[in-house]
């Protein structure tokens, strides 16, 4: 019986230019974007990790690569990606066990994820890149 109601054409709104995501939706899409970014840059991260724990020559090579401003910028972005994915991921795990499901709380925790991950990115980024 419920089939009849499903046959009606359902409204679809997919115009990306006019969609205004609510804060939790924004955190969600950034979770996806940061995850894809981390996956795509995985070989770079593995190479840097391997070089950083290698012999003196490998370490020197890693340091010279890290000296490139463009590499620094990418790593800064990846630092944000990791921290955002981490914070948003903990929020999603909490939602999975039904913590913070009501809308006002969900909005607050979404805002907190953005603020905490950006603040940590700036603090850790400053520590790493400015010494």
């Amino acid at each position, binding site marked *: 019986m419920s089939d009849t109601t499903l046959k009606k054409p359902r409204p679809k709104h997919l115009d990306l230019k006019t969609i205004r995501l609510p804060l939790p939706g924004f955190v969600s899409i950034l979770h996806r974007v940061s*995850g*894809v970014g981390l*996956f795509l840059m*995985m070989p770079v991260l593995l190479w840097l*990790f391997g070089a*950083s*724990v290698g012999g003196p020559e490998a370490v020197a090579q890693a340091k010279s690569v890290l000296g490139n401003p463009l590499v620094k910028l990418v790593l800064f972005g990846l630092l944000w990606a990791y921290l955002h994915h*981490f914070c948003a991921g903990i929020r999603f*795990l909490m939602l999975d066990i039904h913590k913070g499901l009501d809308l006002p709380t969900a909005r607050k925790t979404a805002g907190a994820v953005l603020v905490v991950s950006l603040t940590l990115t700036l603090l850790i980024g400053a520590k790493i890149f400015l010494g």
Partner: protein
Amino acid sequence: MQNRIVVGAHYGLRDWIAQRVTATVMALYTVIFVVSLFCMPEFSADAWRAMFSSGFMRFATFLFWLALFFHAWVGIRDVLMDYIKPVGLRLALHSVVAFLLIGYAGWAAQILWRL
């Protein structure tokens, strides 16, 4: 369930659970990693290398990489299922991602057990 396709998600709970278990493992490792950083006697290449040479950190770090690759497999597969509609292309991309991640796991093992 008439829409089952060959590269579907198995429509089960297993991957959903795996995504959360691997996430928890990585979150715990992140805490261990940060604590280990603060416990370093000095921040130098030698101390950094020594940190990963200890039996515990080597094992924990390897588990972290494995959890990450499994986690990335589920996540990237979900993304591909959302945006790539032609079945052939999707299957090809799934295969590329799967083999890449298996290769990365071997690479991570080689890095850690060379120490």
